């Protein structure tokens, strides 16, 4: 039996953890955004490894292409001079080590005790034959049509809200 899948997973898991640590510890926010870009590409590869091509594509397009560019714009709009000279963590960070460590132990314990229910109909063979995008579209536009419409409403509210929040004050009052 080949060890290739395990090696592949090992590399990507290691890279994802190291990159997420880099994202939250860099002093310069621009560096954080750049490491996060690399992190999102690694996560997209993980999705490919799990036979989710469409999810990998929107991970790259929406997260790496749209959300991170938005982050980069905002980081560059605000001033970095002051940022590079001040402390990066709040004073009580050891408490956060305890909290996040506790969350990790709790999550890991509950996830290790999980047992899977009955399997569904979407085998890897079926998804590879019909293609992932088509199968996902067939579910999304039939069974999940109403949530899909709600998602469009959420995006509309986000567009309106972002404009209202970021625009200059009206002079009328």
């Amino acid at each position, binding site marked *: 039996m080949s060890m290739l899948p395990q090696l592949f997973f090992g590399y990507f898991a290691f890279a994802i953890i190291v990159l997420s*640590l880099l994202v939250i510890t860099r002093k310069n926010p621009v560096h954080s955004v750049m490491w996060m870009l690399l992190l999102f590409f690694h996560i997209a590869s993980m999705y490919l490894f799990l036979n989710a091509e469409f999810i990998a594509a929107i991970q790259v397009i929406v997260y790496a292409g749209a*959300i991170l560019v938005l*982050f980069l714009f905002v980081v560059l709009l605000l001033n970095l001079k002051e940022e590079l000279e001040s402390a*990066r963590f709040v004073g009580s960070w050891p408490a956060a080590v305890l909290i996040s460590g506790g969350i990790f132990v709790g999550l890991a314990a509950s996830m290790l005790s999980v047992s899977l229910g009955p399997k569904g109909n979407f*085998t*890897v063979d079926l998804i590879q034959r019909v293609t992932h995008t088509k199968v996902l579209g067939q579910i999304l536009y039939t069974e999940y049509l109403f949530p899909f419409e709600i998602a469009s409403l959420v995006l509309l509210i986000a567009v309106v809200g972002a404009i209202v929040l970021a625009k200059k004050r009206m002079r009328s009052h």
Partner: protein
Amino acid sequence: MVPLNWYLILSAAVFSIGVFGFLTRRNIIIMFMSLELMLNAVNISLVAFSHYLQDLRGHVLVFFIITVAAAEASIGLAIIIALFKNKNTVHVDEMNEMKG
């Protein structure tokens, strides 16, 4: 075949790193990036569950999570810009008007 548990542990680790970043960083932009990290951790576990259960509903859920994350990022960054205009800082420990 990689066991499902490996993905779940990876997801838990990335989620905890996100929680740590959110609780400790002073820069509100990095706090937002930690939030995105947590959402991505959840996405990894959803896609892994979907693959091992041979069910595509997890992928549909990931699709909606990415939609909401995009909306959340645009609103959140607009709030950051409005805050920076008023307070001239992005450090959360310097924003204490509400005396919480």
